[in-house]
């Protein structure tokens, strides 16, 4: 066995991180996940159940669980809380009618024991649309300023053109100790 292969073996293996993607249906969770994995997003279909992907980037091995957001599936969300390192909550910034609904779901999540203290990244998605609310307004709408028991970050993004996604995940990974 050569020196090079020996060195490769000694190299520290990637740090594993378990990430949970939640949010209402049509928020853009699967599109963001595919963007992360550098996959095509032109033929996305609605998620029934959940998707799992492992993405390796910058020394991290991200195990991402993307759970469907339709109302009938939300009761199943709690089955996936265990051992989550980072919670990523995705919001359709242009869906003004459902901002309160998503706010309620979000704050309900924060009260879950199994998610206690887990840092949360809020993706204010679909910023490419003209009707999108700015991230700051969404932050106020969700009462993010009332959170004291965990770190949070809000990131404006667009899965359509890829903006903001890398930045958001960078925060998430750097935050995770």
């Amino acid at each position, binding site marked *: 066995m050569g020196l090079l292969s020996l060195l490769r073996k000694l190299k520290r293996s990637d740090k594993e991180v378990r990430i949970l993607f939640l949010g209402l249906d049509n928020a853009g969770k699967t599109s963001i996940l595919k963007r992360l994995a550098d996959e095509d997003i032109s033929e996305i279909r609605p998620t029934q159940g959940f998707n799992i992907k492992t993405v390796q980037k910058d020394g991290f091995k991200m195990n991402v669980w993307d759970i469907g957001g339709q109302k009938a599936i939300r009761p199943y969300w709690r089955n996936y809380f265990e051992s989550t390192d980072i919670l990523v909550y995705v919001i359709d910034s242009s869906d003004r009618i459902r901002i309160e609904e998503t706010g309620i779901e979000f704050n309900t999540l924060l*009260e879950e024991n199994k998610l*206690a203290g887990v840092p949360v990244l*809020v993706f204010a998605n679909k910023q490419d649309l003209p009707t999108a609310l700015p*991230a700051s307004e969404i932050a106020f709408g969700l009462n993010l*300023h*009332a959170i004291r028991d965990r*770190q*949070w970050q*809000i990131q404006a993004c667009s899965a359509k053109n890829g903006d903001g996604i890398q930045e958001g995940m*960078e925060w998430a990974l750097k935050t995770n100790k």
Partner: protein
Amino acid sequence: MVYCKCCGCITCFRCFESDKKKSDGIVFLTIGINNTGKTTFLHRMMNDKVEEPTPTWGFTTETVKFKKRNITLYDVGGSPSIRGIWVNYYAETYGIIFFIDVSDEECITQSKEILETILKDEKLKDKPILIFANKVDKIEKFEYMETYNKLNIESLISQGITSVNKILLYPCSSLLINKERDPRIDSGLEWLITRVNDDRSYIENKVKNDTKKQNREFILEQEEKQKRVEEYKKLRAQQEVDQKQQEQLVSNTTNNEEIPLISKDKSKSRSVRSVKVYPEEILPSPE
């Protein structure tokens, strides 16, 4: 609803169960324009090696050990559009750590205006403020009086917004110096903690009262919101019922009209086994 364990009130922000909260009780809020080094400072207090954190667009909290006591730090984003959240943390903080980037003139100018605004907030009255003139490593020589004047600190004191013993301008660098935290940071913090302890009971009472008031306002706001949501839902349900009634009315008054056509079922059991073979010109008929 989460009941607070220390004072029994509903949702006391400070008392969420978390082992980070085993502190001496002192909370400091770090604010300032974006890119002035607030989060890097937080990492210095956590004693790690991070020197280039991602821009904060949210909130981070850490309870750190400093000279045998535990202090809780709140680090919030400073970009123009997220600055609006700063006010939400004033009630709980015992003192302010304000950051400026001395290598950036524009930053100093903006900070001057911001300082005046925030210190006028009732919730920050009589609380000490430490201004870290950060990034001194980027300039040749830090001119203390020059910066002091640029920030109009004298004016703030004369206006009564703050007092001479409650405000301090201190140079520092949140980058590692010889792999260690800049000792000036420690000195600055020492000053801040001493000022808090000089007036400890007053500040603690103020924090307690302001926080309680903030909680009550928050709860009221939530109840209002909840009411709005309920009303909206009722309205929607009523609209659906109304629409249904209207349609029944219409259908009752029209004469026997044909029920909307459903496309006739073309077949009972269709098999796609039937093979459509092209006319076999060349080959003999199939076997």
